[in-house]
Each structure stands twice: as C-alpha cells, then as structure tokens.
C-alpha cells in the first residue's frame, strides 16, 4: 500500500488562513458575535462574510441572526461537522509541521 502524505488530510474549506482562523475561534458551546470575530481576527467585514459563507456552505458553522436591543447582530457557532473537520485538519497540519513521514 502506498504511503499517504498528511497533506491529503487537509480540508479544502480550511486552507486559507482566515477560514482556518475562523474555525479555530469558533466553538460549539459558545456563539461569537460577527463584529467580535472580525476584531479578534483583525480582518474586515467583506473578507469575513466571504469566509463565513464558504464555511457555512460546507456545513462547518451555523449562522444565527438576532437583535441586541434594536441593533441587529449575527451570531456564529461551530457545528459538529466543523469541529470534526477542524480536528482532522489540525492533525494533518501538526504532522506537516513536525515533518512526519507519510502514513503507510
């Protein structure tokens, strides 16, 4: 059986630094406000919106619209599929960073 390089386990949806960071920030037990996430990741609204729509289409995060007072807010949380995908992706990145040999 041919050796399998860890890069094959990387998830296409998580390959950009921003999408990866979004998923690193999100957790299933908390919802994070869009503006908070934008400030946390030091990005802008349009880039974050684009990343969120791709991750949402992949089923990795859930978006919920709501209000705080009269102000509309968007809340984001990771889904179980997103957490699982992130785990595999991080394991692959760790293997790559450690320079591990291909998995047989």
């Amino acid at each position, binding site marked *: 059986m041919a050796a399998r390089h860890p890069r094959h386990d990387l998830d296409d949806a998580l*390959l950009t630094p921003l*999408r*990866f960071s979004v998923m690193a*920030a999100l957790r299933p037990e908390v919802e*994070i406000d869009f503006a908070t996430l934008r400030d946390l*990741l030091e990005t802008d609204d349009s880039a974050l919106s684009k990343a969120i729509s791709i991750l949402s289409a992949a089923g990795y995060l859930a978006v919920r619209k709501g209000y705080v007072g009269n102000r509309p807010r968007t809340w984001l949380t990771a889904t179980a599929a997103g957490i699982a995908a992130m785990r595999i992706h991080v394991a692959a990145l760790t293997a790559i960073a450690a320079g591990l040999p291909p998995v047989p």
Partner: protein
Amino acid sequence: MSDQNSGDQHSGDSARPGTDAAATLLRASDAVGYRVRAAIDARTRAIVDAWMAVAVLTYSLAFALSGIGGAAGAGLISGVARTSRDGVSVPFLVLAAFLAASTLTDGLTQSLYQPLQPRSRLRRFGYSFASILPLLTLLCLAFIVPTTPWPLALTIACISAVPVVVLAVRSALRARRAGVRRPEPSLSALLSPTGRVVTAVLGLWLGAIGMLTGTPFGVAGIAAAGAFFLAMLATRTTRVGLDRLAEDWGRTQWAAFGCSYLLMLSLSVVLPRTTWDLDIVSNVGGILIAAPLVVAAFRPAPIWET
C-alpha cells in the same frame, strides 16, 4: 487577514502549506483560541459575579431582618424577634444557604480557562473586603446595640451589597463587550447518576436544615447545618463535591437552586417573625426548599460538544 485564496484555488497541492506555513497556522490558531477563551471567561465571571451579588444582597437582608438574637428577643429588629423557639439556629440556616451558593459559584470559577491576573485578583479582593466590612458592622451592632432601628440595619445590609453589585455590573459590561454567549443547546440529557444523587441530596439536606430550624429542639437545625458544612469541606474538589457539580448543571438546575436559596432566606426571616405554628411553617418551608432541587436533579441539562 484576507480570504483571497478562496474557491477552487485550493484544490491544487500548490496551495497546501509547507512545514513552516503549517507551524505558523497552528501558532495563529492557538493565539485565536486563547483570545476566545478569554472572552468566554469574561462571560463566566459575569455569571459568577451576578450570582454572588444576588446572594450577598439577599443574605445581608435576611441577616438584618432575622437578627441574630432570634427567640431571645435580642434581634436587630426590636419587637419582632420573639416568636422563634430557638433563634440561635436561624443564622445557621442563612449561612448554610450562602455557603452552598458560594461553593457552587466557586465551581464555576474553577472551570475558567485562564487564571486572573494578580491585579484583577487584588481588585476583586478589595470589592469583597468592602462588602464584608458593613456585614461585620451589622454583626457588632447586633451584639452591642441590639435595639438598632431596623431601617438602619436594612441600610447597612444594602450597603454591604453595593461593592459586589458594582463588581457584577462591571463584569456584565465587560462580558457584553466580549461578544460571546451560549447558544441554545442542541443536545441535552439527564445529569450523570452521581450528579443526580448529589443534586437531590443537596436539596433534601437544605430542606432538612430548614425543617429542623423551626422545631422545638432548634439545636437539631444547628447540627444539620454543621454536618452540611463538614460534608461540603470533606467533598470539596471530589467528584461528589458541590464545586464539581456546578460544572454539570444547566439553567434548570441553577434556577432550582436559586429558588431553594431564596426560600431558605425567606424562611429565616419568617421563622422569627411569624405567629403561626412553627412546626407547620418549618415543615412546609423544608419541603418547599427541597422540592426544586429534587425535581431539577431529574431534569435534563445541556451537553456541550467540545
């Protein structure tokens, strides 16, 4: 950060990170995780501080209203602390409720990801100290000037809650700025068997303390409260400890404890003041104190996938 390398550009291996890039991404992930955990901690602290503010305010009010002399007529409120058979046990009822609340909130504090900075810890100590001073004044007044007018006693009780209320408001504002909150849980289940038993036993024990406080042999209430304090100390940080239990509880269990807590304090105010049959009052009070927690022990709590 930008998301320009999006879409089908990622399907090729050229977009995949090398050793250095992978290490950089992992470091960035850790840094983001750290900042999110700090935001989650701010929220947890706000909940703990809010609980403690309510607990201290109600404790102070109950302490001032019930007085510490009770049946002996040496209570703070002249003329009202005369009907209890053994007023000595009433403060133990109040203390048991408060210690249970503080141990549970300590459990929540232990679930924080990051310890407080020394400066924050010092500031919090200052708030607690500022809260304890008026309470100590109240205690001294009860011994030295037992005829202290009740408006003054109530004012001192309210003053004792001011520092913790200020702390709670500041924590709540900080948590609001942190921009994180709990979502509606998608999964929930009954507490673990240990959690169910400990929650039910907590309810029954608090109920028993309430029941025994009004009996003709009020010392039984003190004994039950004393045993409760010892049990809390002995089980601290063990899997049957209240601090551990707090991490498993959901909103239902916390709301139930809130009801039991308020009922205990209400009973401590009612017992020295009522002209009703104390056996009936304490028995009904004890049942009412126990019921919310016993029911909540068998209600589901949310499960958070981590």
